[in-house]
């Protein structure tokens, strides 16, 4: 009986104390018709057997050098990060409801909040939501609540809404984020309207102006955008604020050590900043668990979803930490809560906090600038191949769109077979970019990796007759 400590003697003694003859007796309130037979699952295996079987599967997916970003980035993770997070005291604790027995997690979250506020240039932060996409959804809901001017008539709890609230998505925002936000906010009659991007790959400002004619509750803008390009964020903020809309910025936290933080954009800065914390020490892990972050100005703090930790005092006057503003949350406020979120992504916040502490501002900046320079090097190498060119010419951060002159879907597949994760075929998102690969090179990519990729791509595009198999096996992983 894996994980169950009971000896036969224990069971007998316990049943005796209860006054039951068998464990089965304890289920006597369940109608017999509802009892099920043995579940249709295989017999149990030992840790050794499960490890062997799943290790074999894991090996099938072991990646070569990764040039794929598109919302998840292959950064180096200092060994200390997960050595610390794996301590039972962090990994196997619950949400810190009992503050006195949870000062470790609480102080850590408070430090996290401080770091995220500093990075984004905002005043307050929550303790995470699920991921970047759901953070955008929550930010949209939050902006709609916070922007009283555009608030709909009728209390939100009075049943299904009818009046619609608009939120404008400006420029190239990650389509999965937009989809997620749309799916989550739609029940509350909030509609997302997109400007799309223009020939430069960034926000179509004319279209934005048009959409702002009737003022929306908020404008969403991603910096760098999902094509890696820098959006004219100051203009977007100016236009949005002029129309009375709040600004929701979506930002990669690593980029914030290098790029102007949303809190500094235009005059007032963005009102809400959200995004995915994955770049801060979280493994790629097929997309999760990551964590979503949301920062905002102090006057919106009561609209923030999720846990928030505050510094307070104990009865002896000593400082200590506790969850605060719980009246926003479902366990107190139930149907009137700012969100239904309960379990969040605590352990990932732990990882990010340790990560940011190890790196500091200078370290994060070094990583950001190195990613940028490495991606430029990558672009230079790949565009040296005949027929490969940059699709957009504006400044980018650490991702770039390359036109490979043919269906990029097939090219990505072939690079994978050759042992390189070659980039994201943008046709999946934008049919007009079907020939384009979105490529990314983090600080982990060496010169050798880049050269290996160039050779592979060259073979795929120029000499398709030669097999490209396995040639990157000596590259770093």
């Amino acid at each position, binding site marked *: 009986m894996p994980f169950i400590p009971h000896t036969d003697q224990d069971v007998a003694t316990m049943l005796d104390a209860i006054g039951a003859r068998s464990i089965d007796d304890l289920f006597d309130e369940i109608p017999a018709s509802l009892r099920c037979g043995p579940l*249709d699952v295989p017999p149990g295996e030992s840790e050794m057997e499960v490890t062997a079987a799943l290790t074999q599967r894991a090996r099938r997916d072991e990646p070569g050098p990764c040039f794929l970003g598109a919302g998840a980035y292959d950064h180096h993770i200092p060994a200390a990060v997960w050595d610390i997070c794996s301590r039972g005291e962090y990994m196997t604790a619950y949400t810190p409801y009992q503050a006195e027995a949870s000062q470790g997690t609480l102080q850590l979250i408070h430090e996290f909040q401080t770091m995220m506020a500093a990075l984004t240039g905002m005043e307050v932060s929550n303790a995470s939501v699920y991921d970047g996409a759901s953070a955008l959804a929550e930010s949209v809901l939050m902006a709609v609540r916070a922007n009283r001017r555009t608030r709909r008539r009728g209390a939100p709890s009075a049943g299904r809404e009818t009046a619609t609230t608009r939120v404008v998505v400006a420029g190239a925002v990650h389509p*999965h984020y937009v989809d997620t936000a749309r799916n989550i906010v739609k029940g509350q009659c909030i509609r997302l309207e997109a400007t799309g991007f223009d020939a430069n790959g960034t926000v179509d400002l004319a279209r934005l102006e048009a959409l702002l004619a009737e003022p929306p509750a908020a404008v969403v803008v991603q910096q760098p955008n999902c094509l890696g390009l820098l959006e004219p964020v100051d203009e977007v903020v100016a236009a949005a604020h002029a129309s009375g809309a709040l600004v929701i910025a979506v930002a990669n936290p690593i980029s914030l050590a*290098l790029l102007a933080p949303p809190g500094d954009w235009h005059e007032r800065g963005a009102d809400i900043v959200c995004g995915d914390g994955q770049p801060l020490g979280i493994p790629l892990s097929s997309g999760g668990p990551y964590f979503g972050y949301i920062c905002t100005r102090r006057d919106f703090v009561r609209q923030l979803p999720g846990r928030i930790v505050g510094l307070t005092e104990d009865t002896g006057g000593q400082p200590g930490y506790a969850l605060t503003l719980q009246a926003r949350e479902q366990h107190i406020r139930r149907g009137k809560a700012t969100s239904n979120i309960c379990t969040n992504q605590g352990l990932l916040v732990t990882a990010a906090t340790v990560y940011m502490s190890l790196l500091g501002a200078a370290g994060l900046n070094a990583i950001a600038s190195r990613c940028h320079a490495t991606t430029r090097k990558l672009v230079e190498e790949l565009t040296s191949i005949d027929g490969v060119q940059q699709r957009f010419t504006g400044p980018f951060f650490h991702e770039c769109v390359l036109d490979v002159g043919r269906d990029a879907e097939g090219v990505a597949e072939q690079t994978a077979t050759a042992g390189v994760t070659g980039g994201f075929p943008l046709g999946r998102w934008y049919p007009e970019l079907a020939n384009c690969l979105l490529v990314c090179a983090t600080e982990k990519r060496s010169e050798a990796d880049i050269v290996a990729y160039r050779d592979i791509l060259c073979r795929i595009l120029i000499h398709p007759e030669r097999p490209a198999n396995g040639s990157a096996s000596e590259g770093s992983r």
Partner: protein
Amino acid sequence: MSTSIFDIGAPGRGAAAQRPAPGDVSDLTPEALRRKPPRLPEVSELQAVRHYTNLSRRNFSIDNQFYPLGSCTMKYNPRGAHRIASLPGFAGRHPLAELAASQGFLACLHELQEVLKAATGMAAVSAAPMAGAQGEFAGIAMIRAYHDARGDTERREIIVPDAAHGTNPASAVMCGYAAREVPVGADGDVDFEALKAAVGEQTAGIMLTNPSTCGVFERRIADIADVVHDAGGLLYYDGANLNAILGTARPGDMGFDVLHVNLHKTFATPHGGGGPGAGPVGANERLAPYLPTPMAAKEDDTYRWVEPADAPDSIGRLSAFAGNAGILLRALAYARMLGRDGMRRVGEFATLNANYLMERLRQAGFELAYPERRASHEFVITFRQEAKEFGISAMDIAKRLLDHGIHAPPTYFPLLVPECFLIEPTETETKEELDAFVAALTQVLGEVRTDPERVKTAPHTLPSARLDDVKAARDLRLVHGAD
């Protein structure tokens, strides 16, 4: 409070071994760049390691002590499952990797979907939701999509018992429904007459967990299902309490149409100080088309993603990629270690432990909220007597329990029972641990009578004395050094 990481640094200090050589950014315009570096810690690698190692020791956790948190299923989190999810092939797989480099992960995802179908009696499962609450959202959104698809658009209410977890009404509201509460009776079951009265053509559905958060099995579940279904409503099962009946009874057999499972509870993935979890949703044939994407599908021996094209009625994606994939792997590893018999035993021994502990506490003089009932995997005791007599609250007793090195059960949940504890020992604790809990709580109860002040001012042995929640909310100090 331990010294803040911000107060142990020095300008320019850092973990140098972690810094790459900076790159050239001269191609970016100065306006695009940050002017002032953010104020992050400036500490050495040893300082960071020491700080966060020491901070961790200011936590209670399953790995350190008994943690009988009702509704939360704080059971042992197998280290083997954690190691498996950390294998380079899993931890290093990019979420958008090509299919050829994804067969290992997809095989696991598909297998987990199948296990969950078998365990819940549902026709199809999507593991996309990232926690129980998101599972609830997904399930209610599916109910709404179902009604909408049939043109049945005037249903405005979701019924929830007043004992329900706060996420249930909150999720209903997020989907645009009103949450209508129905009372729970003195025996812990939903007040069936009240329920019948509440159900009508405005009813989109009902959310229930069974066994309920009162720690009892809802005996009239079949009748409830009939009433709701007859009115055209659907039944949502909140899987937070699945641990109680795993392998013994299945929500699908009780008449539920859609449900979520908290993998961080029943499937033993670590709670991580507040997450991550995962809340896969399962649906019967009727609701299966609406399941959120992505999911894994198997064709011959190849796995692929279920794309939007394959699931035109899906409520769509709820996350940037495929949910909390790493948690799904941990749950699969655990499920495989359990297997058929192991799963049944989870429910059995969780129930045995709860009933034993309840009985011992009853004998020790504690008041049970539902004394006539079996405990499920958890049960409720109330200190209303002590509150009246000694001015002691359940929270006081909880704090004093911490001094005994035992994490306190949730207080004031379910809200309808005054001054209560919701106690869930889980199946992975020993009889000795349960006996020690009885001894500790009995000692506290004695103290309530002999030295109530000591209880009211607890805890006395932890890093902090009782913390002031009111002050925390009044003087908001949410970032370091801002005040």
